């Protein structure tokens, strides 16, 4: 683990108008890690990712990416820097085809032959997307949409990939397939991953480290394996 975090949140406060969703959140993510944020519904997990991406305005504190503050950078300027999010609910462009969705992942890139190669790479990770490349995104099943959302994010060539609830609403077999791919992306491409999950068991098995978020505050930080065996966590999040 290198000394400098690739992504760091320092005493971040953010929210929606009068609703304060995050209160003094600090996180450090090091290059090559898979970090999980677990917590109940409404704890502020998605808000954390949306604040990192500049969609939810930062009220106090600062966010550093690669050592530089990104708090004043417009959301659309972040993917070219290597920071990309797969948001909750996948948010596939429903009336664009699978291939168009992927091409838009590479919107800021101009290296046509390489974009084509990356599309082929996504199709090799998720063969079903290749079979359905002319189909509208909105007609795909939930699992296929999640695959497309991850594929689209890969097209931005992320150094840090933020994943929001990739398991939500999917069948167990699909979840396993998707988490295998996530592990693969981390291992083979060295992509750092910040994973947000309600399914704590799944997230902590995939992660190296984890944070527990409760009503907008970080209450615990530990190695994923330790969290997995922490009796309180097991009681609160793993249904024991």
């Amino acid at each position: 683990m290198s000394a400098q975090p690739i992504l760091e949140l320092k005493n971040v406060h953010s929210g929606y108008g009068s609703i304060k969703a995050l209160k003094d959140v600090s996180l450090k993510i090091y290059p090559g890690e898979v970090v999980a944020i677990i917590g109940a519904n409404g704890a502020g997990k998605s808000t954390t990712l949306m604040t990192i991406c500049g969609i939810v305005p930062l009220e106090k504190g600062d966010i550093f990416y690669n050592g530089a503050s990104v708090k004043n950078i417009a959301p659309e300027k972040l993917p070219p820097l290597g920071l990309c999010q797969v948001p909750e609910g996948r948010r596939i462009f429903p009336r664009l085809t699978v291939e168009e969705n992927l091409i838009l992942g590479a919107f800021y890139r101009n290296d046509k032959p390489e974009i084509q190669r990356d599309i082929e790479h996504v199709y090799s990770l998720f063969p079903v997307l290749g079979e359905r490349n002319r189909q509208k995104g909105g007609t795909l099943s939930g699992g296929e949409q999640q695959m497309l959302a991850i594929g689209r994010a890969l097209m931005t060539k992320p150094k840090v990939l933020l994943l929001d609830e990739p398991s939500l609403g999917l069948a167990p077999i699909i979840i396993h397939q998707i988490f295998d791919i996530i592990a693969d992306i981390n291992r083979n491409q060295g992509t750092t991953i910040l994973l947000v999950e309600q399914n704590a068991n799944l997230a902590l098995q995939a992660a190296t480290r984890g944070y527990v978020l409760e009503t907008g505050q970080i209450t615990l930080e530990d190695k994923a394996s330790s969290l997995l065996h922490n009796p309180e966590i097991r009681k609160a999040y793993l249904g024991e």
Partner: protein
Amino acid sequence: MDSFIQQLINGITLGGIYALIALGYTMVYGVIQLINFAHGEFFAAGGYVGVIFLSFFTGLGYMETHPILCLTASFALAMMYCAYLAIGVEKIAYKPLRKEARLAALLSALGVSIFLSNGLMLTQGVYDKAYPSELFQGGFSFGIITIGYLQVLIVCLTGALLVALNLLVFKTKIGMAMRATAQDKTMSALVAIGSNKIISLTFGIGAGLAAAAGIMVGLYYGSVRYDMGFLPGIKAFSAAVLGGIGNITGAMLGGLIIGMVEIFGAGYISGEYKDVFAFIILIGVLYFKPTGIMGENIDDTRV
């Protein structure tokens, strides 16, 4: 039968012009869900910029020697002027209201419409301004059917613009980004698409098409007037609603239908009611099928 064909040709000409204007309404609505009531004024401004340059070129005598060049330059300058005018209007009058209730921007649009129309009146006068009259006299005659050279020009140019727009929106990366922005602005930002640029582009393209329509109307009817944007503006709006607001193919189809209905209504029912037909259609569509012909979620040609 001959008069039917004649009417059909006139209907296509007028319908194409409505289609060009309707596209601006529908594209802007598709991207920011705003009915841009100032859109008709871009059409009028285009007509004026066109007459100014065409008169200028005619005065210099270039119109005799290089008619195509003069015409192309006038179209290009008018379209560019209106595109930048629309982009400016969006930045000043709509962008600050983007996070407010939708009614705020709508009222702002009405205000801009009055402002631009009065601006045109104060700078260009209250009287009709005549287009150089010697342009495009005559036409092809088949028995008693006449197709004016001007009609041929209008239909061809309209067709070319519609094809170009379709290619842009459905075949290029920037068109893809426009459609993505219309569908989900947050997600677009997460894949590095800046919505401000796309919104400006949408306004610019819509106003450019309206400006082209403005020159065509000026050429076709021989003159322009400061308040000429109002009636074609709301007729084109009716066309956009008829086609399904937000849907590009729908706007083209709606424009054509409104143009046809107007010409045939005037020809076979009564010329005095010519302006009424578009609004009967508007009311009918809103009453029976508010989503229009190609309304939302039915077809994928929505922006």
